[in-house]
């Protein structure tokens, strides 16, 4: 009888593993968000490639991965199985991905899409690991300047800089703004 037990064990275990494998592959493929047509931004994924601090275990098989793609721009990220087809234009709405496990707990990602572009990615459920609330979507990464901004064109009401003396204030941008605002 032992041999029969072995045979059946192998068969049933194999079947169970196969089902799990299949389910896993399906989840990964179907929950990827539609890829957008904002092509120029897609190349900026190479900028995020420089982000050293990707947390692989924090990525989700669904939706976009906030930490893997350093940019909030409309790109779909890595997920190996997420070969999502190109989207029909102008998809808008808020999409919630599946709850995914990370070393910090379970994370559920909500993606806000506006006219086919991802405008926001929000991590919904972040559990604390020993009082350390982790904002996995907010790790610091290198960024490039697009231009040197002139104060006048910026339409700001306040400028923050290192603390200046009173005299320095007088020649500061803030003073200029304050005078203009008066």
């Amino acid at each position: 009888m032992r041999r029969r037990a072995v045979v059946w064990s192998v068969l049933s275990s194999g079947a169970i593993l196969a089902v799990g494998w299949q389910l896993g592959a399906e989840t990964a493929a179907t929950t990827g968000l539609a890829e957008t047509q904002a092509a120029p931004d897609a190349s900026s994924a190479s900028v995020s490639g420089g982000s050293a601090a990707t947390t692989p275990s924090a990525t989700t098989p669904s939706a976009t991965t906030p930490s893997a793609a350093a940019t909030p721009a409309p790109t779909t990220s890595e997920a190996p199985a997420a070969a999502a087809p190109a989207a029909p234009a102008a998809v808008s709405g808020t999409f919630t991905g599946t709850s995914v496990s990370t070393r910090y707990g379970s994370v559920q990602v909500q993606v806000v899409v506006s006219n086919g572009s991802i405008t926001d990615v929000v991590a919904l459920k972040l559990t604390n690991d020993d009082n350390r609330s982790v904002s996995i979507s907010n790790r610091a990464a290198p960024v490039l300047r697009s231009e040197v901004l002139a104060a006048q064109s910026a339409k700001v009401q306040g400028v923050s800089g290192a603390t200046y003396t009173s005299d320095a204030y007088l020649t500061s941008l803030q003073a200029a703004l304050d005078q203009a605002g008066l």
Partner: protein
Amino acid sequence: MSIQTATRRRASPNSVDRARRTRTRRRLRRADLLVVLCWSSVAVAVSLYLAYGGLSEVRDVASALTALGIVTGLVGTDLILVMLVLAARIPLIDRAVGQDRAIAVHRSLGKPALYLILAHGVLLTIGYAMSDGSSVVAETIAFLQGSDLVLGYAGLGLLVLVVVTSVVAVRRRFSYEAWHLIHLLSYVAVLIALPHQLSSGAVLADGTLQRVYWIALYVLAFGSIGVFRFAVPLIRSARHDISVAAVEAIAPGVVSIHLRGRDLGRLQTAGGQYAIWRFWSAKTWWHAHPISFSAVPTATGARITVRDLGRGSSAISRVRPGTRVSIEGPYGIFTDEVRAAPRMAVVAAGIGITPVRSLLEGSVLLPGEATVLLRATDASQQYLWQEVSALPSLTGSAVYSMVGPRPPGLATWMSAEALARGVTLTSAFPDLLVSDLYVCGPQSWTELVIRDARAAGLPEKQLHVERFDW
């Protein structure tokens, strides 16, 4: 002690044989099912991980190591929980394969489970270290700063302690009770490792099937232990109110302890079973012993026979009448229930006579259906032999005795004299291959009988062995 045997009428041989074959088939299928369930539970653990997208997170070496670390943790924990279920003395498992076999499987899973959990820790530390770009040491320090993870490490440490002390070489140095106490730390190890599985091991995330499965498994393991190792024995001992009635020396170093109790028929003890006994006297309360019933219990009385083998059992031999006794069981499948063949062959030596005596008493046998061979080295080991010969169920059956030392230097279960005469197992039991063979005696002697039986071609399902050493 009056020994009563019920007068039972036997059905016709054919229907009895058919019934036996069916029962055996069912029992063996149940045993197979248990094996399949054990392996399937491991498969389910891994499969759930896969189903929830575990593999899609594998992109590079670091994440592969991390994933492998998670899987080894899942499999290791699953195996440990299976081990707990096997040690829980669940009646269903006892009836299907017997406690001794369950414990044997339990033992065999110990080291693999430990290695898997160790791998779990190592792989995850390396995997996270690689993906974070930090060192293994830094990662370990980071882990140690999480209180749940510290408990995980502590659980692992306890597990190592338990497994190391269970390795035979180390176990020998401890008294059984001391070893068992350390072994019970395994419950602690499993429980304190639970928090880190819930918080850091996000496989148990809320609302997932994984969580359901693992919680169910934990409940099954600890629930079984709670019920069958603690609650049921406590209730039984209280209900049956067993105490020592008399202690009778029947041979040098051998005593029969007569027990009195209430409503013992409710225990439904079959001939050949044993129970785990605890005698509540000053010198004996902290150890529990598996001892076979040497007679089928009546409504108010039972009898067990013990040989003076070590400090523990010698103390038992000296318990005084009136001592309270608690019972776990009855357990065992050295009974009439597991008959698979038309005839019965019984071989017993020394203290092995004990379960055989009650087995034969409790069996319903046709005249001449059974053949019994009793082995002793000398006259001091022939206790209970008269009783066996006098059993009503053995009317018309042959009871042989083989007395004498074995030939020096030769590994055989027979006496020198019998060997010289050319006696073999098959000559003593010509119908061996259509018999159920019941063997009970000292361990190494038993193994020799089994070796001969298998060599003669006896099917496994017809071989029934009572072991005392588990």
